[in-house]
């Protein structure tokens, strides 16, 4: 027993919270304790926080214009003048990285905003309603799953025109079926839970049950899954960039930087490798974070 608990900690970790706010905070605190006891997850979180900090304040600190070309200084190796070197057009890679972090974050967020709701809605609807709705929605999902994703993504990207936003939309359109499946499996299980029966008994409408009982419970596993897939999505955006359908030059999107840098990879490793490492770090961070979140949210662990 550690008697020397500070007031706040005791307040947070009490078994007898006195208000909904304290209960929610207490739960968050407990989760945080659990999450923070895993150094790898914390490492992931730290990288992400760094990324957010860089996205927020980096552009103020790194004053060099990420678009400014100094052709005479092209392909300068990393050194004192340019910490991360320069690219084919003599742009400073560090400042491009820093400015591009916003785009990378935006991609990550967009995916969550686009994929999670669609997958969640379709999946929970199918799982909860069952019957013909389930059959219908799952058939659609099957078609979408049987589809070569590259065709869909490329087709949408080509149809929408190039650009990060469109690439993300295209990828999201192809990415939802696994989430729908996951959400369906979860809600199939949940729909049989006694507390759902209890809610129905008390007169809760199907819509209420779906939105207030099922969706919140499924969303954590779907979000965790999305976090784990985030790396894949960032890379897929980069991959579309590689095929010319991702970010528009000269925007400092990391995936595009890697893709463009491959032309000089053999002579100037840093042009493609440094943004590649940045992607690696961020996706690693998302993965670690996802692993950690899964530990925290997994129903088997309670809480």
């Amino acid at each position, binding site marked *: 027993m550690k008697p020397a608990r500070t007031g706040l900690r005791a307040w947070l970790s009490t078994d007898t919270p006195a208000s909904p706010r304290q209960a929610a905070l207490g739960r968050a605190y407990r989760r945080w304790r659990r999450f923070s006891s895993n150094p*790898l997850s914390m490492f992931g979180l730290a990288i992400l926080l760094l990324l957010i900090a860089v996205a927020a304040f980096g552009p103020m600190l790194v004053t060099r214009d990420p678009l400014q070309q100094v052709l005479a200084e092209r392909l300068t190796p990393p050194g004192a003048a340019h910490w991360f070197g320069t690219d084919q057009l003599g742009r400073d890679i560090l400042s491009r990285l820093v400015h591009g972090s916003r785009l990378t974050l935006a991609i990550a967020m967009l995916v969550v905003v686009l994929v999670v709701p669609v997958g969640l809605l379709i999946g929970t609807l199918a799982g909860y309603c069952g019957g013909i709705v389930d059959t219908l929605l799952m*058939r*659609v999902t*099957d*078609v979408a*799953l*049987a*589809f*070569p*994703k*590259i*065709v*869909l993504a*490329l*087709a*949408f990207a*080509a*149809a929408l025109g190039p650009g990060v936003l469109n690439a993300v939309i295209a990828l999201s359109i192809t990415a939802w079926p696994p989430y729908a499946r996951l959400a369906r499996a979860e809600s199939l299980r949940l729909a049989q839970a006694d507390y759902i029966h209890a809610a129905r008994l008390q007169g809760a409408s199907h819509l209420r049950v779906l939105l207030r009982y099922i969706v919140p419970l499924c969303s954590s596993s779907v979000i965790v899954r999305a976090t*784990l897939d985030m*790396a*894949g999505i960032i*890379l897929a955006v*980069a*991959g579309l960039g*590689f*095929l010319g359908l991702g970010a528009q030059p000269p925007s400092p999107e990391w*995936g595009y930087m*890697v*893709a463009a840098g*491959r032309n000089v*990879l*053999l002579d100037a490793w840093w042009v*493609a*490798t440094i943004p*590649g490492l940045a*992607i*690696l770090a961020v*996706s*690693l961070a998302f*993965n*670690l974070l996802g*692993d950690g979140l899964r530990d925290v949210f997994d129903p088997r662990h309670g809480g």
Partner: protein
Amino acid sequence: MSTVTLNRSRLGGVLIALALARWIAMLAVTFTGLLAITFFIGRKIPIDPVLAILGDRASAAAYAAARLRLGLDKPLIEQFVIYARDVLHGNLGISLLTANPVIDDIKRVFPATLELATLSTFIGVAIGVPLGVAAAVKHNRIVDHIARVIGLAGSSVPVFWLALMGLLLFYARLHWVSGPGRIDPLYDGMVDTRTGSLLVDSIIAGEWDVFKNAFSHIALPAGVLAFYSIAYLSRMTRSFMLEQLSQEYVTTARAKGLPERRVIWRHAFGNIAVPLLTVIALAYSYLLEGSVLTEIVFAWPGIGSYLTGALLNADMNAVLGSTLVIGATFIALNLLTDALYRVFDPRAR
């Protein structure tokens, strides 16, 4: 008694017929959906297929004639119906880009991808699964950490970066493997195409030099793709195994005095084998269409780059044909894993 069994077996027959009918209907729906979506998306892409066949300097008259010939003047629905009818007759049309019947192109490019995907999946399974099992058994120990790092790296490293670095190291520096392409020009065409897989064909023909050369070409791209399989499979195996190892029947097996190896492989692993097969099938199907970038870097004439090229040139027949083939493979894989479930998982029967 006998009438009951008779009734039951007849009922069983009816049930099987019903299930079969349902299944065929489902297949038809899935396929039509696949076809329709590809078709309409393809037509919506703002690329002019005529440009691909006539070039940008042809006269306006030649252009108009070509549009007419391609049937592009007809309403979209009509075009689709015509195409669907042809497909039903087994005619996938002629590719605009390669001037070959699409079916011939697919016969050439699909085995190339299949060969690559199969080999990488083999490697992935051979390394990833034991790694995942070891990680679960030695939970939170060194092996587990290694497996986790590999698993994370596998989902984080850009494939084209890894591919180019692999070429630089193993091909240009160390000379361990051959470079881009499926085979050296010297050996090209030395064995008859039977399966479409150079490795298999050369074994059938008994041409060991060809086999060696083809193998040294496929080793690196397969290795690069296998890296991703290893990562994914070890990750999934690990989490499946962790779940099984905490089950009561594992305790029972131990209480029976079985050696730990048998507890792990016969009991726990026996229970994840089927879901693992599903995951492997998923990873495999992902490789079947997801290896475009690898194909480009390794100049591998596979269906991924074929499809991409076709898409970017509005070569609709080629796009639709390859989509159908890939979709059919996916569906077949799905059905196969379903069937495996039924056969190997007693609870699903």
